[in-house]
């Protein structure tokens, strides 16, 4: 995850809620305008104009994305609304293949003349690179049949953009009030909604109209011990989701009880902020960890990020091949390791699946951003590496006949490229509850929620923090710990996976803003898992004093 286009809401010192820099997300608009839609007939006409111009100028392939990207952010602290921002970004991106090279151009003049000019510029860019002989091997596109005119919509129950601002403000300020009443010194809370209305058309004969929704409620409670010069925070245990506003309607059946309540497909923000307020105070008073080896019991609200960084990123084919060498990095995984058919990424409990059709997930779509219907595929099976993530111009490198539907662009003004689908750890096949898992641990730490994260450019060495750390002694939780981070080597870590709870505990977590590419682009993606046990992991103490 990268921070370009993101700002800290309440200061670096506060540790952190990172929010999109709204000025970078698009231009602000009013609520009413957010509900307008553009006629699909108009979009088809514009698309045909652009594709014809591209072909007439010498493109062998062209696609166009007419995108209307809506974002809404409601940002509060304590008793105050800091910002309500509606933004719209509307424009056209055109990608062409000419003389064997890609070219791309984008602009926000969405008229027939406007898109024709953009198409011409895209072809000129491709030809300039071909003329300079810096194009490398000619691009090979995996065949893709045209779907004709099709559409897809996130199956939402309540469009977040139709929910009155007042309802959102009331929820957040009520939550803030609960935190302050419970003894918090500060509280920040936000609701962030995205609606991607995107129209894709290509010279293959696809015209795809999609309406995609995502939602992210979040908060951070801060507790200060001024005399000690200490402070602690606890962030929400919500998850960003590919759902409508229905996610914020609490449901008892979607709660996971335990040391602290966690949530599946519905979130109880008010309950979580009460718990967070208690947790933040407990953290201030908790014991600093003794560094050493521990068995780690990792909750899905934490493990999603470890899966994201250590499994999902290194299995992106563009990283494996070196296309991300200058930015996101490369990978410790190679084509040779994949082709050997016996690269033991992890223990037999490690089964990793890619799936862009999971309901409620951030990555759920009908068609990707180059007009491909996504499929489900195994990345790791019984601990053995079985596949990488690929798009149309990469499929041949894996010997695949078609793309796996992993193409995405964050907006009309960015070129589409390979982005990760939802990548998840499958639940254990044998019946196992979290309580039973903890009973088997002699010396361990149970980690809930994600915190600090860092991993090297080939994804060997990583370090993760968390929100809540509970000490386990002889099968029992005995109290809270602080200053915990674990450091491990990727393959060693996944080979220490000793058990995964069954599907009753399965939940999605996710990244609302995963960065990759140059210029950097943000992608939203979910990672599911049940609670998992890793044996003998190195834990460090992160406490330091300055001044």
């Amino acid at each position, binding site marked *: 995850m*990268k921070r370009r286009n993101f700002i800290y809401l309440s*200061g670096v*010192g*506060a*540790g*952190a809620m990172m929010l999109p820099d709204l000025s970078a997300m698009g*231009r*602000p*608009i*009013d609520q009413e305008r957010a509900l307008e839609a553009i006629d699909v007939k108009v979009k088809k006409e514009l698309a045909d104009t652009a594709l014809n111009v591209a072909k007439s100028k010498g493109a062998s392939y062209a696609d166009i994305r007419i995108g209307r990207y809506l974002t809404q952010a409601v940002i509060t602290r304590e008793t*105050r609304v*800091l910002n*309500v921002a509606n933004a719209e970004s509307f*424009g056209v991106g055109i990608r062409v293949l000419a003389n064997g090279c*890609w070219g*791309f151009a*984008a602009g*926000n003049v969405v008229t027939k003349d406007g898109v024709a000019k953009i198409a011409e510029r*895209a072809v000129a*860019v*491709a030809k*300039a*690179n071909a*003329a*300079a002989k*810096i*194009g*490398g*091997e000619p691009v090979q596109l995996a065949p893709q049949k045209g779907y004709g005119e099709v559409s897809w919509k996130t199956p939402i129950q309540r469009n977040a953009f139709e929910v009155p601002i007042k309802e959102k*403000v009331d929820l957040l300020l009520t939550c803030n009030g609960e935190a302050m009443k419970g003894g918090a*010194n500060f509280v920040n809370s936000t609701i962030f909604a995205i609606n991607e209305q995107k129209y894709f058309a290509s010279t293959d004969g696809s015209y795809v109209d999609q309406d995609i929704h995502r939602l992210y409620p979040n908060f951070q409670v801060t507790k*200060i011990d*001024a*005399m000690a*010069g200490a*402070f602690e925070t606890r962030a929400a245990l919500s998850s960003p989701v590919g759902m409508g506003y229905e996610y914020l309607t609490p449901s008892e059946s979607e709660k996971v009880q335990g040391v602290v309540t966690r949530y599946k497909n519905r979130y109880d923000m008010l309950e979580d902020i009460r718990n967070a307020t208690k947790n933040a105070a407990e953290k201030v008073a908790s014991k600093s960890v003794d560094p050493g080896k521990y068995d780690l019991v990792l909750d899905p609200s934490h493990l999603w990020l470890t899966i994201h960084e250590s499994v999902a990123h290194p299995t992106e084919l563009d990283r494996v*091949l*070196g*296309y991300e*060498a*200058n*930015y996101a990095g490369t990978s410790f995984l190679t084509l040779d390791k994949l082709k050997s058919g016996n690269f033991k990424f992890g223990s037999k409990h490690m089964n990793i699946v890619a799936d862009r059709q999971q309901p409620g997930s951030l990555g759920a779509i009908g068609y990707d951003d180059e007009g491909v219907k996504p499929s489900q595929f195994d990345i790791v099976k019984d601990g053995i590496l079985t596949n990488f993530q690929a798009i149309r111009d990469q499929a041949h490198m894996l010997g695949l006949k078609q793309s796996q539907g992993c193409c995405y662009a964050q907006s009309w*003004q960015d070129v589409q*490229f390979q982005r990760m689908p939802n990548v998840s750890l499958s639940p254990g096949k044998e019946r196992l509850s979290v309580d039973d898992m903890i009973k088997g641990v002699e010396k361990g730490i149970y980690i809930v929620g994600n915190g*600090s994260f*860092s991993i*090297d*450019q080939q*994804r060997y*060495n990583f*370090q993760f923090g968390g929100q809540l750390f509970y000490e386990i002694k002889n099968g029992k939780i005995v109290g809270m710990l602080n*200053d915990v*981070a674990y*450091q491990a080597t990727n393959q060693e870590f996944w080979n220490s996976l000793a058990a995964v709870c069954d599907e009753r505990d399965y939940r999605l977590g996710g990244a609302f803003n995963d960065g990759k590419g*140059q210029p950097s682009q943000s992608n939203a993606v979910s990672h599911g898992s049940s609670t998992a046990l890793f044996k003998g992991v190195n834990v*460090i103490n*992160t406490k*330091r004093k*300055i*001044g």
Partner: protein
Amino acid sequence: MPILTKEEAQALLKKVLSYSKADECQVILSGREGGNIRSALNAVSTAGEVSTLNLAVNAVYGKKTGTATINEFDDASLEKVVRRAEELAQLAPENPEYMPMLGPQNFQESIQYNAKTAAMTPETRADMVAKSLAVTKAANLSAAGFLENTTGFSAVANSKGLFAYDKSTDVTFTVTTRNSAGTGSGYAARGYTDVSKLDTGAATKVAAQKALSSVGAKAIEPGKYTVILEPVAAAYMMENMFRFDARSAEEGRSFLSKRGGGTRLGEKLMDEKVNIYSDPFNTELPADTWTAEGQKLEKTYWIQNGVVKNLSYSRYWAQKKGVQPVPGPSNIIMDGGNTSLEEMIKSTERGILVSRLWYIRMVDPQSLLLTGLTRDGTYYIENGKIMFPVKNFRFNESPVIMLNNVEALGKPERTISVESYRSYLIPPMKIRDFTFTSLSDAV
């Protein structure tokens, strides 16, 4: 054309303001155009151009504000956008932190526009990338790089008579060079206002030298070492520190918070060799001369001789605290010293030369403890000589502790953060007792 002149922008903004009926109204016009080439495996992978022009109107009634924007510029559209902003303001909740708009100010024009950079084309970009690729091909290395140029302008005007205009250019180039065995990697990053200063071939030669000399890295034990950080590594390490925000410090949730309450303003927090400031008129690193609110940006010391000299105060927070507002940093410049990189190495008994740092994240905001890794050329120094390349380390260290342990500083260089792509003017630095906590096999 999305880049308007000062006169064109002023005339347009004046017309928009004439439609306003609100208590206060501010209009912002901004445009951007630019292009980029991305390469990998010694060839272009993607290339593109983008242009945009937008108008935003902010209408205010009392402490209620509304914003609307548009990208159509006929008279009817301009009036419509003003009306829409006013309707939104009438419906909005009061913002208790709202501050009245500022009246006319005198701004000096910034020096961050260069006509040569603004004139870059797909062909000039392709030529510059070809020069870089020629170096890596000749050295039998593989390059992945990114070249991007941007020209932008922004203009603001309000109903109290404020007007400001600025335009700027920026070009950045980064390149990672790797050998085919995957055992050596190098990097170079350059950022300029004026494209004629950018030599993509020379930068790629530096990256290639790092790639070739980092082959055959040996593992040595992690622990505390004297390190020599090249500017690109030092800038990234310090970037998390650069907001110098008074409010979070006074709220008790910052590394600048004082035990028992208050801030560390006036306290000596770092070695006395450390001087960090902002200066929009620095010719090496020009920056904006005004903020979106219409505040003047001037030379401001944040750390002087190791002492916290200023904290940034928003207009609201300054009024609440009864002090003058201090806008946040326009750019960041750290003074250097006279020690060359060679002299730093020569004076080191046992240490590590760090070319670049990677994936830095906050571990503890209270101490500003950060974690991240070295990469693209990490070398072991003994008795004043580079002995051999070493495997990369993970570190856990605070920039505040680091800047207390300064042994020597070199000449500041314009460098870019590998995370935010912001440009800084930062010296190479020799630091004692830098904490490495584990090894990585990554190259």
